[in-house]
C-alpha cells in the first residue's frame, strides 16, 4: 500500500474530489483526518470505515477563527503528527466580469486561497522531515490556463498555484514536498452547477472527449502524496484529459 502508516489530513472531504481522495488514501493504508463544513462529511467517514479504513471526521469552517488550530490540535492529540496535507476545500464562483459581488469574491478567496495558506502554516508544524511529508493542493485548470466565466474563481486558484511553487521552495529544506493537482472539468456537484451550455462547451474542449471523474483526480493526488513522488516538488500537475482551450 502506498500510504501505509501515514497520517493524512484532507479538507473539503464531504463530497466530490475530496471524498475520492479521502477514500483512496484510506484504502492505501492512511489514517485520515477529514474535514468539511457539510454534514455529508459523516457519510465519507462511514464509507471509509465500511471498507476497513480509519477516519476521524472533524466538522467546521476553515474560514472561522480558531478552527484551523482546533483541527491541527486534534491531529496532534490523535496521531501526534501529519504526514500528508491535502488542501482541497473550495467553492466555485461563476459570474461574468461586471456581475461579481465583492461578498462572493471574499468568500471564494477566503475558502480557496486564504484557508489553504493558513492551514498549511499550522500543518507543517506537525510534519516530520524524516517521514517524507507532502502537501497536495487542489488548484484548477482555471488557475493555470484561465477560464472565462469564472474569473474570480480562476484568480483564487491561480494564487494557490503561486503558493504551491513558493512554499515548495521554502519548505524544501525541511524535507516537505508541495505540489498541486490542477483538475479540468470533473464530474462533481461543483461542475453540475454550471449551465448545460457551459458544460457542453467545456467538454468539447477536452481532447479525451469526456469529463474526468473524482477518482481520476484522487489517483494523481495519491501519486503526489506517496513516496513514488519523492523527488517531485513545486509542480502543478494537470488532470484535465488534455484540455485544449
Amino acid at each position, binding site marked *: 500500500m502506498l500510504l501505509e502508516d501515514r497520517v493524512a489530513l484532507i479538507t473539503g472531504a464531504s463530497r466530490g474530489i475530496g471524498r475520492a481522495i479521502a477514500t483512496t488514501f484510506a484504502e492505501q493504508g492512511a489514517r485520515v483526518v477529514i474535514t468539511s463544513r457539510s454534514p455529508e462529511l459523516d457519510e465519507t467517514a462511514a464509507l471509509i470505515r465500511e471498507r476497513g479504513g480509519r477516519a476521524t471526521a472533524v466538522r467546521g469552517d476553515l474560514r472561522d477563527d*480558531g478552527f484551523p*488550530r482546533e483541527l*491541527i*490540535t486534534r491531529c*496532534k492529540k490523535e496521531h501526534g503528527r501529519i504526514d500528508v496535507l491535502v488542501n482541497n476545500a473550495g467553492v466555485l464562483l461563476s459570474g461574468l466580469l461586471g456581475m461579481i459581488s465583492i461578498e462572493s469574491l471574499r468568500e471564494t478567496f477566503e475558502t480557496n486561497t486564504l484557508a489553504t495558506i*493558513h492551514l498549511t*502554516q*499550522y500543518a507543517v*508544524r506537525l510534519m516530520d522531515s524524516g517521514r517524507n511529508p507532502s502537501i497536495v493542493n487542489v488548484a484548477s485548470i482555471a488557475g493555470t490556463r484561465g477560464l472565462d466565466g469564472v474569473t474570480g474563481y480562476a484568480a483564487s486558484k491561480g494564487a494557490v498555484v503561486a503558493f504551491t511553487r513558493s512554499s515548495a521552495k521554502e519548505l524544501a529544506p525541511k524535507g516537505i514536498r508541495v505540489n498541486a493537482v490542477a483538475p479540468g472539468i470533473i464530474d462533481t456537484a461543483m461542475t453540475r452547477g454550471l449551465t448545460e451550455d457551459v458544460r457542453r462547451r467545456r467538454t468539447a474542449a477536452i481532447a479525451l472527449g469526456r469529463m474526468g471523474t473524482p477518482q481520476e483526480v484522487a489517483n494523481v493526488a495519491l501519486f503526489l502524496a506517496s513516496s513514488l513522488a519523492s523527488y517531485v516538488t513545486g509542480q502543478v500537475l494537470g488532470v484535465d484529459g488534455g484540455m485544449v482551450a
Partner: protein
Amino acid sequence: MNKDKLRSCFSQTLGIPIERVTDDLAYNSIEEWDSVGHMAVVADLESTFDVMLDTDDILNLGSVGQAVAILRRLGVDFDAA
C-alpha cells in the same frame, strides 16, 4: 520548574547559554533568535508543554517574558515551585 523548562527550550534551540535567557531577551535582539530560530523555539515550546500556539501568538512572541504570558494563557503553570 516550568520556567526552567522554558529557559532550557530557548537555550537549546537557539544554542545560547541558559544565563542569557532572561525575560527581556527579545526576538531579533541577538543573531541566534532570527525568524528561523523563532520557528524552532515555537516547535520546541509546543512539544515541551504539549500546546499549540496560534499564528497570532507566534507573531506576538517577541520576548521570553511574552512566551511565559502566552503559555500561561494556554494553561501552563509558572507559579509552582
